[in-house]
């Protein structure tokens, strides 16, 4: 009997990455290496105030005392932090783009190729975009329209200049600069990113979105996103990412901080499709990201939804600190690993306040030689009376060379807490595929259908447009995965 896996894996691995092109644009890139001068240089390039530089330097000095974590279930050769360039960006023309007309047409073209038009008239109604190209935010759309409602949506650099009081109050309030090796590195050298503030009682009328693109060679991308939803505010935020195909690994160490005040809601969705490397595991992005939200006020809600299909290595745990009474944290995740990809991802739900609730739904799909680990922590502190958690971790295996691993950590210090944990591992059955075939459905369509069905609970959490994209992305990534 011919096994489905052999021929498949080969086809699968030879699957081309669609977004691997390189943009020829005049680049400004600092030589590789990291020291205090580089930190000062980054800060100076951005014309930052003294307090920002001080914060970076504190982080840098702390970073020197830290060791790179080795506990994740991923394997990679040591990273040479002196071999990375910590600043790369399209060369500024004069003062930098004031409007879209001043952006290098090559960059506009790049985003167009990626399906993210930056010209407002071409943009899907209802989505405002901040586009980050290497270290620089190149365009933020619909800024003025949102400004009329008091919503601030701009690049992080702009926020440092124009809204220093908000940045100083909230920067590092959820992920302190001492938090972990990669977050601390980010705090020292972060280049740009997005900043969002939704004022009291305002419901943001459109999806806000950031699109990250790594283009420069040998560079890392260290962006930082800070989203604050004031009392009773609501915002839905989308994040997408791609990178060119390059033989060297590139480091992406981002930090995302979310703050939800009383009654506020933040919905954060990611579709991550960084370059995963070639079939032998050469090249690809190391995606080492710290994402955390804080439900600061009562009845606030933070919801993470992620679809992780790219990167050579993914290492991230979007988490929620449930401090406000009756606050809600949610984590919905689909992680697909194929080829030589490795993912160690999950979440942390820290219950501090009374009657806090959290939901975790994780779907891991492994194909080829992919290794997929779910790692999640649910912590219920003493004061969290009536806290509730529901966790569901499902793994699906395609072929017999891949692996799925689950590491749930549960720490309950309050006897009134209620916890539920469900886990399952399944293989895409040949019987399922045969059943589809017998109804006239081709094998590739069958695999895509079965996997999408498996991920349905997560996809339905995504905003409509994104859900369609995510399904297509998964289908493209699975092409040729079964025989």
């Amino acid at each position, binding site marked *: *009997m*011919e096994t489905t896996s052999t021929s498949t894996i080969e086809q699968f691995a030879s699957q081309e990455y669609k977004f691997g092109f390189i943009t020829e644009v005049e680049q400004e890139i600092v030589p590789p290496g990291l020291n205090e001068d580089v930190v000062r240089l980054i800060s100076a390039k951005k014309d930052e105030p003294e307090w920002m530089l001080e914060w970076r330097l504190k982080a840098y000095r702390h970073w020197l005392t830290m060791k790179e974590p080795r506990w994740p279930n991923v394997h990679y050769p040591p990273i040479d932090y002196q071999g990375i360039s910590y600043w790369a960006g399209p060369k500024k023309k004069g003062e930098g783009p004031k409007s879209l007309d001043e952006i290098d047409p090559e960059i506009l073209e790049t985003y167009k190729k990626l399906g993210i038009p930056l010209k407002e008239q071409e943009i899907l109604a209802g989505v405002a975009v901040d586009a980050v190209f290497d270290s620089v935010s190149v365009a933020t759309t619909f800024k003025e329209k949102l400004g009329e409602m008091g919503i601030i949506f701009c690049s992080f650099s702009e926020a440092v200049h124009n809204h220093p009081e908000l940045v100083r109050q909230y920067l590092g309030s959820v992920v302190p600069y001492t938090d972990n090796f990669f977050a601390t590195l980010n705090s020292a050298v972060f280049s740009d990113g997005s900043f969002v503030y939704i004022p009291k009682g305002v419901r943001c009328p459109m999806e806000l979105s950031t699109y990250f693109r790594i283009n420069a060679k040998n560079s890392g991308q260290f962006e930082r996103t800070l989203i604050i939803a004031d009392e009773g505010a609501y915002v839905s935020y989308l994040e997408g990412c791609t990178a060119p195909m390059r033989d060297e690994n590139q480091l992406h160490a981002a930090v995302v901080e979310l703050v939800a005040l009383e009654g506020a809601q933040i919905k954060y969705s990611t579709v991550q499709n960084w370059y995963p490397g070639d079939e032998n595991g050469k090249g690809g992005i190391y995606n080492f990201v710290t994402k955390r939200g804080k439900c600061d006020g009562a009845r606030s809600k933070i919801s993470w939804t992620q679809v992780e299909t790219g990167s050579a290595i993914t290492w991230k745990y979007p988490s929620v600190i449930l401090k406000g009474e009756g606050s809600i944290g949610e984590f919905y995740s689909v992680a697909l690993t194929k080829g030589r990809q490795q993912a160690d991802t999950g979440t942390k739900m820290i219950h501090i306040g009374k009657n806090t609730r959290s939901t975790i739904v994780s779907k891991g799909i492994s194909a080829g030689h992919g290794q997929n680990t779910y790692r999640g922590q649910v912590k219920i502190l003493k004061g969290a009376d009536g806290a509730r958690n529901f966790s569901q971790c499902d793994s699906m295996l395609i072929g017999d060379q891949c692996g799925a691993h689950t590491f749930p950590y549960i720490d309950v210090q309050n006897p009134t807490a209620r916890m539920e944990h469900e886990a399952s591992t399944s293989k895409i*059955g*040949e*019987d*399922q595929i*045969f*059943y*589809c*075939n*017998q*109804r*006239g*459905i*081709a*094998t590739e*369509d069958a695999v895509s*259908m*079965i996997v*999408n*069905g*498996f*991920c*349905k*609970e997560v996809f339905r959490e995504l905003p409509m447009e994104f859900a369609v994209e995510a399904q297509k992305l998964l289908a493209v990534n699975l092409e040729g995965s079964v025989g």
Partner: protein
Amino acid sequence: MLKIKNLHASVDGNEILRGIDLEIGNGEVHAIMGPNGSGKSTLARVLAGEESYEVTAGEVLFDGKDLLEMDPEDRAREGVFMAFQYPVEIPGVSNTYFLKAALNAVRKHRGLPEMDALEFLTVVRQKMKLVQMDDSLLNRPVNEGFSGGEKKRNEIFHMAVLEPKLAILDETDSGLDIDALRIVAEGVNVLRGAERSFLLITHYQRLLNYIVPDYVHVLVDGRIVRSGGKELALELEEKGYAWLEQEVAQATPVGA
């Protein structure tokens, strides 16, 4: 429409089918009966194209085309349908979504335009009535959490929507109580017609009280050892299979 000649098939090197000859004409209903392990289900699965079965000799023509050369999905698109003995669950994929994909794949193959959601729904409602299918099963994931009876009815419903030329029912009666059996059988009966042939695989005669076959064949040890009309089923009901097995054993020299 279907011509099976000297069909031999093995699984993991064990020969299960040892030379099957069978012809099914348009609109005919044939029943294959036989003791456990005689190769009934293997025959169904070989015809549907399951790849764990290896055809070692013989040929199968379907409307003059070489069926064994086709991939399972092409067989389905050409009009071969198999109602599974144990239909699998496909979590998260709704029954309607699945059927729409299937129907459109079949239509595309036949050069017909794909159906949009509205047209499809009209067809589905009509077929649902035909096979007395419950509305609620439509939007549930394919077979997930269905009772045994619901699964079998769902198979008949799929058949009604896909309108095959040849429907193979693999022990559709197994595990059904009498009411469920009656509903399934009625579904099959309304789908009988001059352009649709059936191959019923069954261990028991009771299904044949409800779906009356034109021909009955008895399979023993991978061969058809007796063929006849519907009265053959009754004879088997009365006498069991043992006498036929004995006959076969006597006719075959030991070690052959």
